[in-house]
């Protein structure tokens, strides 16, 4: 990913202004992240109406919760996108509950969700990073992140022990980090 130190600071300021009820700063955040939030929700829910509802929910949560953002715990971008992902996952799970579909069958009927998910990643750098993972790591991460499945559901679907899924997620995320964010240091690196 491109260096973005200045941008991070700028967005921290926008969030701080939003927490002080500044509609201009809030509009600026929407203009930066509206499309990303909407695209993620659309990819996960596959329905425009629902994606719009989630986008609205996410931005109203940003408006109300901006003061809870703590720059010491990550960038504004990560905070906003994690909120977006969280709400999308909630919606996916609610949708599946309503449809009362056994999860393993849903996955089977949809073919290889993980593969499809990776192909639909538009950003060449991110797609390449995902392709650089082992099949097992990529499946675990794509099912979880783009499919909205829990680690238990994924273990069941792939017929591997839960511990293996945890390891694949951890190693996969570490590898994505070294590919996408080579300059970032984690607690163990």
């Amino acid at each position: 990913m491109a260096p973005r130190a200045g941008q991070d600071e700028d967005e921290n300021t926008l969030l701080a202004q939003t927490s002080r009820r500044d509609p201009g700063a809030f509009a600026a955040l929407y203009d930066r992240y509206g499309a990303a939030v909407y695209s993620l929700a659309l990819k996960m829910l596959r329905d425009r109406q629902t994606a719009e509802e989630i986008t609205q929910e996410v931005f109203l949560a940003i408006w109300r919760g901006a003061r809870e953002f703590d720059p010491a715990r990550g960038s504004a971008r990560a905070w906003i996108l994690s909120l977006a992902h969280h709400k999308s996952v909630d919606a996916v799970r609610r949708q599946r509950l309503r449809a009362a579909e056994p999860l393993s069958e849903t996955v089977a009927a949809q073919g290889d969700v993980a593969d499809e998910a990776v192909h639909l990643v538009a950003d060449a750098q991110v797609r390449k990073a995902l392709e650089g993972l082992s099949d097992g790591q990529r499946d675990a991460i794509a099912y979880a992140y783009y499919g909205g499945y829990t680690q238990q559901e994924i273990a069941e679907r792939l017929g591997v022990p839960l511990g293996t899924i945890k390891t694949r997620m951890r190693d996969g995320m570490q590898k994505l980090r070294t590919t996408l964010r080579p300059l970032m240091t984690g607690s163990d690196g």
Partner: protein
Amino acid sequence: MTHEELRELLAPYALDALRPQEARDLETHLAACETCRRELAMLREVAGDLAAGVATATPPAALRARILDAVTPRPRVVSLPRLWGVGLAAAAALVVVLVGLNVSLNRQVTALNRDNRSLNEQLTAINERLGAQERVLALLANPASRTTPLAGSVPANVRFVYHHETQQGALVVSDLRDPGADLVYQLWLVAGQEPVSAGVFRPIQGRSIIVPVSADFSRFQVVAISVERGPTGAPRPSAAPILAGSL
């Protein structure tokens, strides 16, 4: 769970792949573990890359308008019985009314606090109203607050009360005719030639209303009211003000 076991939950947590109970267990641990918090921050940045990687769709422009409209500040008008007369002389009576309101709102807050987080939205709304009322209360009770009457082309009983240091102000509308269908009154603070909107309101016939305003009043020389199209008003005054007063 051991630290190692909890730490194994970080990647699935960043991917939102934990069951609710596991997520809560980890959150409890995170509150106390700086190492895990740092690790999670890093994982969240990577998860953010996974999210941003799919951005191809353009949301409809109407969605942007809807979202921004939902957060456009509309002053929380405090309505009071006409009887109170609403001048600074009546501040004591106002204090009684507002304290009563605060007590009832505080009770609601206490009740809501006991409930789960699905009530957070209502709680936020009530807290905001409570905060606005407390600020008005403090303002009207403060002997250092200044009052300026607004006069102009229509008969009215309208005054603006403000306090420099706390940057709190309130427009007190005791008598003002209805602006007409689809129209609202818009309050402006004017610095030199530059008017800044301080919100819109409609009077309630037979009652006094208070429009709370927060601003650095030392920047402004004039407070004015114009008639604008509802419900949101205009970015700049579209006509000469019908009422004005100097700060």
